């Protein structure tokens, strides 16, 4: 293998490691061997080969693809020149810079047609034509938002829908499906523009530099409090797989744990294989202890995303508990258990919960004190000696009464009690954060992202 290529490979794998993928030496050797087996001029084969050897978790796919595009770009340099070279005679044509309006028309046709390769070529052209701007005298840089703002593909939706439906009924299934198709293609195009901008930047400033800044954190590591709508949607999609993983791990742990009384029947049956001598004894499994779960969560604006995600997870894990009851509050508290029917749609339940439940009593700003008092007063039977109490919230109390005494009684009555706080622990107690008042009464756990939540659930679930 040529030295240049090997250096490139090592640098690429190093960038993957920096981005958080674990690439072991054994895998590097595999990748190098794979290089010898495939046609190196086939870029997609190269991508697949690297993916097969070093990419072992689907969550890392986006990062991998982005870095691969940076380190092994499909083209280099100015696309106008490339198009001319491809045409062979350098005649002016598609490569010429156009007016934004002309670009928009071209984009509309491409989105309607959906040809990926043509779209990618077009993305190169528009970035060349519209993406450059001066950042300082004599310095230029590339920007994807300049391109996307001037083209604003979303505004083409109406005209694209008209063309795609061709006189079919509006408002029904056909429109929904067409809309989905167009949205997918627009998203694809946006990603192509962003990838192209990264490529041009990397050519100007060096690949290492760009690959360090461009990597996005994984959805499960994004802070709940800072998650975008896309991040939250991605997280919600992971709730059921996550719950399933947790449940499997639990059953495995239970099976491996201490076993109970001798299972006479199975032991005798097994002894038949050894001529009636019971060489191996079999035991009945212990009946697992299943606690009741009571979730009391702050659903006010700032922490709603966190509360929703955690509620969804609690309901996905319902089988692990004898009973799950949920209470929501903003400045007063209401039971929301009934919104979550078995087999029902949790996202739907959350929407209904926020519109129908009585959560606001005074001004709609978080009031932990009043909510806790109200909870203890209206639902005295909710917390008992078999209950695990879970409080979700950032304890940002707007300098109001904390209800710490009531909380203390609740904690004493319960079997376990935990407070999950989505704020970084460094900020606890600053400003209107009332964590100080609850300190020592209840164990407060920092749960900033899905990874931390998974760890927590694993720790507290019944053994």
């Amino acid at each position: 293998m040529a030295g240049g290529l090997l250096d490139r490979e090592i640098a690429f794998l190093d960038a993957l490691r920096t981005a958080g993928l674990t690439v072991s030496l054994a895998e590097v050797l595999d990748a190098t061997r794979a290089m010898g087996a495939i046609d190196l001029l086939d870029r997609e084969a190269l991508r697949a080969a690297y993916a097969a050897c070093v990419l072992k978790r689907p969550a890392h796919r986006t990062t991998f693809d982005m870095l691969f595009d940076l380190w092994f770009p499909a083209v280099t340099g100015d696309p106008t020149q490339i198009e001319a070279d491809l045409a062979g005679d350098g005649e002016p044509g598609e490569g010429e810079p156009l007016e934004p309006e002309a670009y928009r028309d071209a984009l509309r046709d491409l989105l309607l047609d959906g040809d990926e390769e043509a779209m990618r070529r077009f993305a190169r052209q528009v970035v060349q034509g519209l993406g450059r701007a001066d950042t300082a005298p004599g310095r230029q840089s590339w920007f994807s938002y300049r391109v996307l703002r001037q083209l604003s593909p979303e505004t083409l939706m109406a005209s694209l829908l008209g063309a795609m439906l061709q006189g079919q009924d509006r408002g029904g299934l056909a429109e929904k499906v067409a809309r989905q198709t167009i949205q997918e293609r627009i998203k694809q195009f946006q990603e192509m523009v962003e990838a192209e901008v990264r490529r041009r930047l990397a050519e100007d400033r060096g690949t290492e530099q760009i690959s360090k800044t461009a990597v996005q954190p994984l959805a499960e590591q994004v802070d709940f409090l800072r998650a975008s709508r896309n991040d939250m949607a991605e997280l919600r999609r992971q709730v059921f797989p996550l719950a399933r993983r947790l449940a499997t791990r639990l059953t495995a742990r239970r099976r491996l744990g201490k076993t109970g009384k001798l299972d006479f029947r199975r032991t005798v049956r097994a002894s038949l294989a050894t001529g009636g001598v019971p060489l191996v004894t079999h035991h009945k499994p212990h009946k697992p202890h299943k606690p009741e779960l009571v979730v009391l969560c702050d659903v006010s604006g700032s922490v709603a995303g966190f509360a929703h995600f955690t509620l969804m997870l609690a309901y996905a894990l319902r089988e692990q508990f004898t009973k799950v009851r949920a209470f929501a509050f903003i400045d007063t508290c209401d039971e929301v258990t009934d919104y979550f029917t078995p087999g029902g749609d949790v996202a739907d339940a959350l929407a209904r919960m926020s519109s129908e439940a009585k959560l606001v009593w005074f001004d709609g700003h978080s009031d932990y004190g009043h909510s806790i008092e109200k909870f203890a007063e209206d639902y005295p039977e909710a917390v008992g000696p078999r209950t695990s109490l879970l409080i979700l919230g950032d304890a940002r109390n707007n300098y109001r009464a904390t209800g710490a005494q009531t909380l203390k009684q609740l904690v004493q009555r319960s079997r376990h009690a935990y407070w999950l706080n989505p704020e970084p622990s460094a900020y606890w107690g600053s400003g209107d954060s009332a964590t100080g008042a609850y300190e020592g009464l209840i164990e407060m756990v920092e749960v900033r992202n899905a990874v931390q939540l998974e760890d927590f659930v694993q720790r507290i679930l019944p053994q």
Partner: protein
Amino acid sequence: MLQPQFATVDDVQTRLGAAGYLADHAIATTVFLADRLGKPLLIEGPAGVGKTELAKSVSTATGSELIRLQCYEGLDEARALYEWNYKKQLLRIQASKDDDSWHDIHDDVFAEEFLMSRPLLTAIRNPNPTVLLIDETDKADVEVEGLLLEVLSDFQVTIPELGTIEATRRPLVFLTSNATRELSEALKRRCLYLHLDYPDAAREKAIVLSRVPEVAEQLADQLVRTVRALRALELKKSPSIAESIDWARTLVALGLDTLDEEAVKSTLGVVLKHASDHERAATQLKLN
């Protein structure tokens, strides 16, 4: 010991195509590498995207024997690797005459005749081309992974009474997993990895057309785009390729040639298997 079955990546693609599996470039390259490097291939992905089918098609395409080990909770060495046939051994001992020495019986009882070969050992001993499919690896207990590590890295099995058995011809190994639990790093490191996801629209359409040739192209296009719209919703279980194919078959059987609201509403049960998903799809796609 390594005898590659495929010449090039294109060769993989054509021969899999002939076996009825439409592999895209990435899949074909990965299978090619697994064959060339003689490494096991771990395939992960949601249910119903054709993980098991890929292994079966490779065995058809190469004319290899398919040996399948289905994993489940409580699978152990005795059922995955080999087991001594106790009953037969007992019979042999009871049938022995008095003048047989202990030494003779001992040697005799632990002979080939009393060994029951299970899938892993069978695959290793097979002198003919073999595809070993270890299905749903994530369902098995963690100890089984340890067993697999030994078998898959050296392709040899040590039986204390018989000695070490080495593969005369390395089987092509496929492991599948639904990712209900994370497999150990050690196992992943020894395997090539392929994540099979829902295919892009063009490939899914081609798959539907090849599996259900009776379906009109126009309808297949509509169906694939509707399935993609369903996948974009936040559903408990997104429809997979298997469901798209079932749906196409249903529509053909019902003699429907266009997929309008009425048709979708009456056949939605084929693609969505949860009541809550049904309701959600009905409201979001405005079927009422």
